[in-house]
């Protein structure tokens, strides 16, 4: 199995094959070979021994931002998927409509713009409150407010689309 892994701001090519006995793995990171002995303690919690060094690695299982806890560090990562690369490129062009998404669960406090209004990139669009703190969600691009899907008082979940900027 071969895939690209984005970790610590770098893209690494990783090749992995099971070895004998079960639990042993041969892994090549950018061509450099590592032999690892892995044991699953419970779902998401792995004991890994590499060259006699013992590591505890824990999957964060964050719904949108996968990360791994290695010792004191929380290391975000992304397994490269060619489709997501294409969609990111499209975002950068900003010619097509882009959503304003809730970054965390909360309640809508107020709307700072109206449908049809012209907005600049990074201009505040919607104010969301969570845990008594208010968070201003910004426009992802220069454009016009094509749609507002929420009203003050609504409860929203992380990742919900609150508005569309065209």
């Amino acid at each position, binding site marked *: *199995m071969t*895939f690209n*892994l984005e*970790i*610590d701001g770098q893209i*690494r090519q*990783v090749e*992995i094959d*099971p070895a*004998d006995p*079960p*639990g042993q*793995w041969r*892994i090549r*990171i950018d061509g450099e070979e*590592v032999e*690892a002995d*892995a*044991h*699953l*303690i*419970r779902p*998401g*919690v*792995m004991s*890994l021994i*590499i060259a006699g*060094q013992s*590591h505890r*690695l*824990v*999957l*964060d*299982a*964050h*719904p949108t931002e996968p*990360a*791994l*806890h*290695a*010792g*004191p*560090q*929380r*290391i975000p*990562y992304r*397994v490269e998927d060619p489709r997501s690369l294409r969609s990111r490129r499209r975002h950068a062009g900003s010619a097509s409509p882009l959503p304003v998404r809730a*970054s*965390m*669960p*909360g*309640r809508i406090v107020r709307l700072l713009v109206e449908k049809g209004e012209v907005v600049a990139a990074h201009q505040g669009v919607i104010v969301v409150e*969570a*845990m*008594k*703190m208010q*968070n201003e969600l910004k426009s992802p691009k220069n454009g016009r407010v094509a749609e507002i899907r929420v009203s003050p008082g609504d409860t929203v979940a*992380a990742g919900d689309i609150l508005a569309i900027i065209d």
Partner: protein
Amino acid sequence: MFRKILIANRGEIALRILRACRELGISTVAVYSDADRAAPHVLEADEAYRLGPPPAPESYLRGDLILDIARRTAANAIHPGYGFLSENADFAQACEDAAIRFIGPRPSAMRILGSKTNARQAADEAGMPRTPGCVHGLASPEEALDVAAAIGYPVMLKAAAGGGGKGMRAVLRAEDLPSAFASASSEAERAFGSGEVYLEKLIERPRHIEIQLLADENGHCVSLGERECSVQRRHQKVLEEAPSAVVDEDLRRRMGEAAVRLALSAGYTNAGTVEFLLDGDRNFYFLEMNTRLQVEHPVTELVTGHDLVHLQIRIAQGEPLPFAQRDIHLRGHAIECRIYAEDPGNNFMPSPGRITRLLQPGGPGIREDSGIYEGWVVPVDYDPMLSKLIAYAPTRALAIARMLRALDEYVIGGIRTNLDLFRQILRDPDFRAAGIDTGYLDRLLAASSPDQVNPASSAPAIAAVAIFEATKNASNGSAAALPSSASAWKTAARREGIGGTDWTPRRP
């Protein structure tokens, strides 16, 4: 003796109180909002009753509903914890009228000491040093200008009903005072329902030192030493310790005696805390009194060896304090970290959501007062504190080492937490040298870049991701499986012939 106590709170403190009740053989009644149906305090209580929808004014602040549940369940007493109704004198009065003991001071003492302006008057009567400034609410910006001119700038505007940094403004020059007065007053009005503000001289670079008191109903009051709470972010305590590195026996005795005098003059009973500012010359000034159990009470418990919640309950039952001032000795050093669901890398934005992974620290000298479990969804409706991690050791240096060790064992997945912030503080040379004041943390955060150091070696992390990816679909047989503790148990169970009916051999 109390047979049953209703706990009018949630989160870690509800669980903390519940455990104390269990230990004393008292049965417990939990109350909960719709957001907390699956909360740990509900799970662990003997009885549990719904209050209402998630917002606090419709649930944990509904004193009428809580009293009603207490009557229906024949609870003898109500423990309010901290926050919510804990400093509400009207609620304490309503409990008294219903012949249900409020575990805390009497309403009259709460009224004197709960308002900061009233408490400043009481401090004067008790002969306690306080910051220069007024002892009454300010009627107008003009009056504020007169008082400020008399004591000299810089000054601090504060809400009389305040707490948690709300309605507080530092003012350096007279021309800024009128607008600061207006904004502090309206912020206080919104937060506390009272716009009363007063003014005091700003102490430069103070330390926040507070004295824990216990007073029984026979007029016997003792101090249980100090806590140092100078590590604050925007006037909110983040890390506390006991004892303070700068308080010696003599200063401890003088602060303790002043605090006891204030409490006795107001007829105070039960647990309470007198907060002081300490200036660079180790002069102390009365700040305010908190008429309840504090979040940071565990550090005092560890260095004194006394369980404050047990003692609160026993005092409320009318028992005398089981010790005298001369019996109180501080031993060792304790540090508490307040673990929050917030993202230090993103301006400390709250980070509610599901805790998908939880590995909790343990071992010698570690105590965790927690209100979470793996799978628990941290609600958006309340304070985002998850747990309090407390380390106890013979010396401050060993307590720091122990806390750092425990932080490295602690994993909270699925949400962001401030665990890294504590590593940064505990490794900082100024903190280690106890060179701290209430502005210390804000300066540390302003000076440091939010970027993390690069890991020494990323090979184990990359290998782990690769193995997790390669075994993702192991359960349906489409990829290689990983040996696990669960499968080893199943293998053994099968060999012993004790079940394992769902066991199927897997080939790598």
